């Protein structure tokens, strides 16, 4: 293996900051921008993606040695699509309101580049155990960004948090924050902050 074996804890932690899928790798931006108009939507999207990422990583890494190189991408997609459909039906059956809010973005997890990216870059080359750690860390990093962005946008755009009013009548909701421009602004500021913190840390 060309890659230096990282410590077990680092496989999880790297997803939170050093290799955070959204803030550092800029992957999975479509769901990040599209569904973070409220905290609960961001969280639901994060959890659905987590389910797909972790289950796919376990399956792919356990069969990694029997998948011929030529059909590996097709195989990944089949496995990912199956789990996405499971997640989509689950939400529609048990959380119909969230399912309605997320709309087409749940089926679109199939083409989330974080998931395919982790299979290709990690699960296809590492043990089941390490893939589980890696996908858990990546998922956690993804959830945290989506939740944070969803919370900021919901507070500024609707004056609520998880549907509960937190800012009183004096606050005139900044409607733009729950519209697409708010997503771009919010994410841009998040990434700028992450870069600034990293630059400071590198200097120190």
């Amino acid at each position, binding site marked *: 293996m060309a890659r230096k074996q990282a410590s077990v804890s680092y496989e999880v932690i790297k997803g939170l900051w050093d290799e955070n899928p959204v803030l550092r790798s800029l992957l999975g931006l479509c769901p990040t921008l599209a569904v973070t108009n409220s905290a609960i939507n961001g969280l639901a999207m994060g959890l659905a993606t987590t389910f797909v990422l972790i289950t796919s990583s376990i399956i792919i890494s356990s069969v990694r040695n029997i998948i011929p190189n030529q059909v590996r991408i097709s195989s990944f997609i*089949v496995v990912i699509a199956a789990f996405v459909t499971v997640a989509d039906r689950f939400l529609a059956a048990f959380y119909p309101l969230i399912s309605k809010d997320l709309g087409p973005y749940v089926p679109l997890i199939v083409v989330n580049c974080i998931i395919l990216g982790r299979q290709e870059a990690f699960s296809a080359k590492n043990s089941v155990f390490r893939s589980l750690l890696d996908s858990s860390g990546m998922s956690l990093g993804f959830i945290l960004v989506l939740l944070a962005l969803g919370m900021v946008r919901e507070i500024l755009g609707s004056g609520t948090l998880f549907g509960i009013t937190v800012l009183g009548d004096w606050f005139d909701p900044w409607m733009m924050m729950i519209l697409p421009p708010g997503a771009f602004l919010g994410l841009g500021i998040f990434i700028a902050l992450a870069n600034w913190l990293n630059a400071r840390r590198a200097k120190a």
Partner: protein
Amino acid sequence: MSTTTKMILVLTTLTMISGGLLSYWDGFTRPKIEAYRLQELKKAIKEVLPPNDSYDEIKGKDMTLYVGKKSGEPKPVGIAFEAVGNGFQGKVAIMVGVTPDFSHINAIKILEQIETPGLGTKIVDDPTNKQDRSWFSNQFKNLSVEPQIEVVKNMKPSKPNEIQAITGATISSRSVAKILTDQVNVAKSIYQSKGQ
């Protein structure tokens, strides 16, 4: 084993397992999804019709009519149906309740819409109107649809078939009026052609 055989074997096995898993999962979730859809439909019908005990379904070509009845009374109390048409940006679906003679709307409930947030979405919920956030939908209560629903701007409606447009969302307002006028006529012809 040659690579080609292996490729076919691996992909076939993977897709077969996935297919099996999904068909099992579908059997498990479908009844729940269906039950929710039916529950939402019943709730919407109840909201747009006067108090009723049951409803009969009349299936038309593109539309199903729900004829609300009170037990012991032969005449229907009202007729509900789903009116679908184009809004400003996309499909708008509205559950409409009308009087049995199709002359007046009893009430409406917007089921689906993708209008501009903050402007067109006021057809469902207007947070700037503190007294009545659903004032737009409420205007349709007991509204006459003959000869058609008219939309007026910046003034109070004076005729029985007039509604006031939402400021900044005239097209959305007009779309709702047009969808209702058109679809009430479609529903009427279905109802009459079924010999009732």
